[in-house]
């Protein structure tokens, strides 16, 4: 590519909220259950049925809006968005049009170089999801309305992202945020998060900037697909511009899908259809006033956000940005780490125990790391035992695993399993003296043969450890042995 260009991307993100029930009826949310078993007259759009707002869904949305630094509207309402589609039983979707519950926020996304970038949020509104059409029955299509009425948070960003990596970073950061807030499982495989990037290029030619037509890629449900579709679109649009010189015009925004098998975008609609959704206020629902008391109550549930926590772990605990990132990937790990460290264990030790052993165990058991049967106090005790040398680092790992099995405290396990290190220098000195007496050749080499000194010292060290049945603190052994050999 010869011409200079800049990628411009804005995102529309749909997030399923993890409420117990649907947004306008009492049906439970359920993924992957038998089709149409979580439905009622309301979410089936039966004649005479009426929606009733799930307060929790709005609270979850407001909480997210607050975390995204949005202004929360004191007055918000519901609108009907009309379009005909078989998965939409009422043929209108209850959504929010001109008075969304929140607007004008921003999200700070982490960049590869360790800095952050602010991406503006245009608005966030709440709506109901549609059902699902499937076309696997030959001549017939089938409709599953289990998903119809799932609370869906739609977040729209400004076109502030300039690379596939930035969009990926935003997507991941948003996933981390909604999980921290506990408002969504944000499980990509279950379709809890869907992305629709709007992409175009600003190409500089002969000192002039040309804007390529915008492509909207629909319904992306993996981070990889988001990143790759943007990279693909950038190449495709560049090529198209070079070949045709086509630039952005009113109405020439095209819609694409992502073909994951062939790793390419596929044109769905050439020109933006003049959709007329005939929005109007839903007379079945009353407008919602979000007063100061309610907002305050929701605000009090706001937690420290992952990016803030990550930064704090770096500045307060001196962790590397990488380690801080791993520890703050989910709220359970971050909180568990934070509490354990505050109980007086050393940062590096707790970090290692958690990232190397804890997360592995948690993944195996499919639970968060703070639900491994191990309290923060117990973990702090274990870390402290390792810190002072009562147990070796490898023993600490073994003890961690056993704690997760039995729920016992680390000291008891260490004693029962003979994992306590002996650090008594008198006892150790006696063993060393025995070994020195039994191995004169090795002692000689260690002292006077530069070629064999290191190996011989290692041999003597091993002999001492063997004599102690592995229970001597290697640090103490090596200290005393070195002193004696250098004497």
């Amino acid at each position, binding site marked *: 590519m010869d011409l200079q260009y800049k990628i411009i991307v804005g995102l529309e993100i749909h997030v399923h909220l993890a409420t117990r029930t649907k947004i306008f009826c009492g049906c439970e949310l359920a993924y992957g259950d038998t089709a149409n078993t979580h439905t009622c*007259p309301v979410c089936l759009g039966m004649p005479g049925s009426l929606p*009733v707002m799930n307060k929790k869904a709005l609270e979850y949305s407001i909480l997210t809006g607050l975390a995204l630094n949005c202004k929360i509207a004191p007055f918000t309402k519901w609108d009907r968005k009309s379009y*005909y589609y078989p998965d939409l039983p009422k043929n209108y979707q209850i959504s929010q049009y001109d008075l969304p519950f929140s607007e004008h926020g921003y999200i700070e996304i982490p960049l590869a170089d360790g800095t952050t970038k602010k991406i503006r949020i245009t608005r966030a509104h709440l709506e109901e999801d549609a059902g699902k059409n499937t076309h696997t029955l030959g001549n017939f299509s089938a409709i599953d309305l289990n998903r119809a009425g799932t609370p869906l948070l739609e977040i729209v960003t400004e076109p502030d992202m300039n690379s596939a990596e930035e969009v990926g970073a935003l997507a991941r950061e948003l996933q981390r945020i909604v999980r921290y807030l506990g408002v969504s499982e944000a499980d990509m495989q279950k379709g809890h998060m869907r992305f629709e990037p709007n992409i175009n290029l600003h190409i500089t030619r002969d000192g002039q900037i040309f804007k390529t037509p915008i492509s909207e890629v629909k319904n992306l449900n993996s981070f990889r697909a988001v990143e790759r579709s943007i990279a693909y679109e950038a190449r495709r649009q560049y090529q198209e511009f070079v070949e045709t010189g086509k630039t952005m015009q009113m109405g020439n925004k095209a819609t694409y899908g992502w073909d994951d098998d062939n790793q390419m975008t596929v044109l769905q609609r050439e020109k933006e259809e003049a959709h007329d959704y005939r929005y109007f206020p839903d007379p079945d629902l009353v407008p919602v006033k979000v007063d100061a008391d309610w907002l305050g109550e929701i605000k009090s549930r706001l937690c420290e956000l992952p990016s803030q926590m990550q930064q704090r772990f770096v500045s307060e605990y001196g962790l590397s940005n990488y380690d801080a990132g791993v520890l703050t990937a989910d709220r359970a790990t971050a909180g568990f780490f934070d509490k354990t460290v505050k109980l007086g264990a050393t940062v590096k030790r707790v970090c290692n125990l958690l990232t190397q052993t804890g997360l592995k165990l948690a993944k195996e058991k499919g639970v968060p790391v703070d639900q491994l049967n191990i309290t923060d106090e117990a973990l702090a005790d274990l870390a402290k035992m390792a810190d002072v040398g009562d147990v070796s680092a490898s023993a600490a790992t073994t003890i961690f695993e056993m704690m997760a099995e039995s729920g016992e405290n680390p000291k008891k396990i260490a004693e029962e399993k003979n994992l306590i290190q002996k650090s008594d220098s008198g006892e150790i000195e006696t063993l060393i003296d025995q070994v020195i007496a039994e191995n004169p050749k090795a002692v000689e080499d260690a002292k006077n043969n530069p070629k064999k000194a290191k190996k011989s010292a290692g041999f003597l060290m091993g002999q001492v450890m063997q004599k102690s049945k592995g229970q001597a603190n290697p640090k103490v052994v090596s200290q005393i042995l070195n002193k004696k050999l250098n004497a």
Partner: protein
Amino acid sequence: MDTAKQLRDKIAAGEVQSVDAVQAVFDRIEKIEPNIGAYLSLCKEQALEKAKQVDAKIASGESVGALAGVPVGVKDNMCTDFVATTCGSKMLEKFNAPYNAHVVEKLRAADAVIVGKCNLDEFAMGSSTENSALKQTVNPWDTTRVPGGSSGGSAAAVAAGLCSVSLGSDTGGSIRQPASFCGVVGLKPTYGRVSRYGLVAYGSSLDQIGPLARNVTDAALTLNVIAGHDERDSTSISEADAPLKDYLTDLESPIEGLKIAVVPALNDAADAAVRAATQAALEIYQSLGAEIIEIEMPHFDYAISTYYVIATAEASGNLARYDGVHYGHRSPDAENYVEVYSKSRSEAFGTEVKRRIMLGTYALSSGYYDAYYLKALKVRNLIRQDFTNAFKQADCLMLPVSPTTAFKIGEKTDDPLQMYLADVYTIAVNLAGVPGISVPCGFDEKNLPIGLQIVSEPFSEDKLLRIARMYEKETDWHTKKPPL
């Protein structure tokens, strides 16, 4: 024939068996219904079964509900899980709802016996019940004339003695106008007083369920049963905001120092007989010590235009769900899903329903929204303000229900605009959300009933019913029976 209240008290006291009363109604239905066409469906078996249960309850000394054993008709736009809910439309001709409307649950809990589902203009759109795709209901007072609408079946059934009371729904006058045409009492409660859950929506911000009855007492009795908060309807008022009352308690006490507002400018639209009957009714109130004050309601004239924008806009959304995909009529000729929509809807909706869907769709379309829908909302507020001002000066407003008495079948079907204009007196009440009642106040020269409309402030149904009852006690219009 007993009123609902009398019948209920006799049944509860064991003087009359509900089974006998219900059987008598079905005997009468067998004889008269073929000439009236009030019902789209009858549930004789279930009704007699229910009546037996009520009789058994009473025999065993159990307490029974406020409508124990009383035969009741239900407009066929209220969902029932035991008989079809058709809305008078080919679209839902074979539709069986999987649940009961809130009011149906309430009726059953009050031990009422549901006799059948009453005919209506398709999806409650109309003023004569001529828009029903399934049946023609006639006026029991003159079977060449319409019963009014859209609750024409509910009004005709009560007038012809085919049930004791019935439920109707009123979006622009659909309870009051047929009540007036058929010489019965019809009450449209305040918007939010009765749950709309299970009422098939026409204009959601206007629709309200209410009773049609032979007298004011029966209307009060029925309102007692169906009123109250329902958490399934977000627009249903909480009892903290508008406490429920026993509408029978003070019904016999007249309102002391009653002040009645009238709007002289509105009278011109009415026929001479209607004007005379209204004037005579006012004179009776005066003789009871009421004071009449003349007021202006400057925005009343805009009510019809405003209504036909708002109601049709809401209807265009509400009726979008009838698409042949999930239930209701599906065209056998559809080749693809777009045709499932277009053919099913073209085939199964009647002309008036199509007209209103088109009107509403147009009013909401991009580029027209501000000029129509948004402006209509603004005018609606002004109309509401007119009523608020009126109730600052008076206890109630009195005016005709309809400018004419019942018209001939077919007389206005070619001129929808004329039909729309006939709702001039009732529509503003729905736009304002206030309660209104129609009570019989005389007959014209053709012996056709005339109704007097009384309107009061929101959630003052108790007062409204007492004002109506004051008049009823002084007159015998409500005791007149059609010549069947």
